[in-house]
């Protein structure tokens, strides 16, 4: 069921939604000279429209459900208070949210990351509350970037997993395809009800055809984990790495975090913030012993986690949606596509050698 949203209905629908939802969308950041630099997801100010004229946001959409810093608990150290030294949950913001303009790759990434935060044994209330409160309104990619390789990661420019609604540009207006009930409700709430006699199939095929960058992952599940861990190419892959956190912070499927306490006078908070396996202190023991002491070990951890450990653990493919952010913004041009191919080829060569 595809609906048509004319240009003026877009703004009026958004203002209707703003009454019951908190709205988020891509907003252009501006440099000191006022020039548009890049987009990030932000809460939309009253009347502000999401800027849908973008490649993709510089940071992934993960911050919508997993903010870079987040308060988990508050407490007081004031011993005159009855509840001193007892942690109290930060009250949840119960309001429903809409994330406009999320690319299909980012939506799929969130659905994958859910496997980490929503397990049979434990549920992360912070992540899940925001995820479940959010209606994800995707924006199909008709002009993918040269670094996009989403068609190699069981994703794609019109991929629907993790989305409630998919938008694509149509002339001055938009087409909207509801994928879930949440999405249908949003269309109704916004008053976008005009049916369009359209099919997205041809557009999807055309967009997929634009994606020229591909990686091979078919052998990764087969190979031996320790063999790959001990492969000879890691030193070369990691040579240029400066061990910054750019790749992990920009990545939609990286979720590692740190927990820290901060106290101001007597009032404290327990916070959690993003962390990165690229940083040496990520794994350092109190004794000073560091199991991943060298940058080569840390670079290997990042790629092995995404392309082997995750594959083996969940049997749902690689932990990468092909958004290309780490490729575009790595300060030293380390390219996950090259590494994936190295790993895949290594496994396939090892298998061939065994047969021979």
């Amino acid at each position: 069921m595809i609906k048509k949203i004319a240009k003026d209905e877009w703004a009026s629908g958004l203002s209707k939604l703003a009454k019951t939802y908190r709205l988020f969308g891509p907003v252009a950041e501006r440099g000191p000279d006022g020039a548009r630099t890049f987009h990030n997801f932000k809460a939309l100010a009253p009347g502000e429209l999401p800027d849908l004229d973008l490649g993709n946001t510089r940071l992934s959409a993960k911050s919508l459900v997993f903010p870079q810093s987040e308060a988990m608990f508050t407490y007081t150290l004031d011993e005159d208070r009855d509840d001193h030294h007892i942690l109290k949950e930060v009250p949840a913001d119960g309001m429903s949210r809409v994330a406009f303009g999320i690319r299909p790759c980012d939506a799929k990434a969130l659905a994958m990351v859910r496997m980490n935060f929503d397990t049979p044994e434990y549920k992360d209330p912070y992540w899940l509350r925001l995820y479940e409160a959010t209606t994800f309104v995707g924006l199909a990619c008709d002009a993918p970037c040269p670094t996009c390789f989403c068609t190699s990661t069981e994703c794609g420019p019109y991929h629907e997993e993790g989305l409630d609604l998919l938008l694509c540009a149509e002339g001055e207006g938009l087409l909207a395809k509801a994928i879930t009930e949440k999405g249908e409700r949003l269309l109704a709430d916004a008053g976008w009800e005009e049916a369009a006699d359209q099919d997205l199939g041809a557009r999807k095929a055309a967009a997929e055809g634009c994606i020229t960058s591909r990686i091979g992952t078919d052998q990764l599940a087969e190979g031996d984990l320790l063999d790959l861990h001990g492969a000879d190419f890691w030193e070369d892959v990691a040579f240029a790495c400066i061990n910054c956190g750019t790749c992990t912070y920009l990545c939609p499927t990286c979720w590692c975090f740190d927990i820290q306490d901060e106290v101001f006078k007597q009032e404290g908070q327990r916070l959690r913030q993003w962390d990165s396996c690229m940083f040496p202190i990520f794994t350092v023991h109190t004794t000073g012993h560091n199991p991943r002491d060298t940058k080569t070990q840390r670079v290997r951890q990042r790629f092995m986690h995404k392309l082997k450990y995750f594959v083996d653990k969940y049997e749902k493919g690689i932990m990468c949606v092909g958004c290309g952010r780490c490729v575009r913004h790595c300060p030293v041009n380390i390219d996950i596509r090259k590494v994936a191919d190295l790993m895949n080829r290594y496994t396939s060569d090892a298998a061939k050698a065994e047969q021979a």
Partner: protein
Amino acid sequence: MLTYIDEIRAASARLLQEGAVEMVVGFRQGSQPMMNEPCLIRRPEDVDTLVWDSHCGINLTNYLTNRKEKIAVIAKGCDARNIVTHIIENKIEREQLYILGVPCQGMVDKRQIAMRVAGEITEVGESDTEIRVQTTRGEIQTFAKAEVLQQNCTLCTHRNPVLYDALIAEAVSEQTVDRYTDVAAIEAMTIGERQQYFQDLFAPCIRCYACRNACPLCYCPTCFVDEAQPQWVGKGQDAVDVMTFHFLRAYHCAGRCTDCGACERACPVGINMRVLTKKLEKDCVNNFGWEAGLSPDVRPALDTFNLDDPDKLIK
């Protein structure tokens, strides 16, 4: 400059063959337009993977330390100055290095070009004076190199390496420029404007520490932001913590920074944190007549005491 690569390869092959060095640190072709990747060559037959063009802005000094081997390094003017600083600070011994100096006319700022074209850049070519890019929309656009250089390159006054074992080509002419117009503009602001300026400047920071890690000067085994005992800085996104990081990192580079631009170049969100280090650099020049990294034989300004050092602060 486009012919430099022949000499770089020839010299690298020669050094490896003669056993004068065990490895060469240089650049190989990157997978992205306008990006080359630092690499390590150990065998003479691999020197053809080395490249040299206007996209070799990354400072290679980072890759020289904590190694035992004798290393040949391809060094631009700024790399050479950082090598000098490393020698002064006992991070590396002069004898361990063979410096292949490259006179430099500036490296291209890929972000400036990306902002000036519509669509995504797919291919890049260059002549001695121009950069030609092709985009996903099929357009070809040409820019004069001088107009799309990294800002620090446009202000560079030491384009020729100050320290080398061999020069790859004839020295280029040095520029005479006012290096500090942007610093002066900030100095001219009111205190309130400056506060706002720096709050806005650092607002996009995500604390990935790419600036710190790309900087050849930032080699502390444990950075102050990573210390747990005591914990100097909060680890979250509070603006004060973010500014404290940038302020102290810059201050740790006082009298050492060569304005190689590695920090700004590495930043994934385009913050020009160089306005802090340049202020320190300007004050070092004006008060101590000191420019970092010009000679391994002169002790740095902050390492020496002169009776005529200005001391307005101390009462």
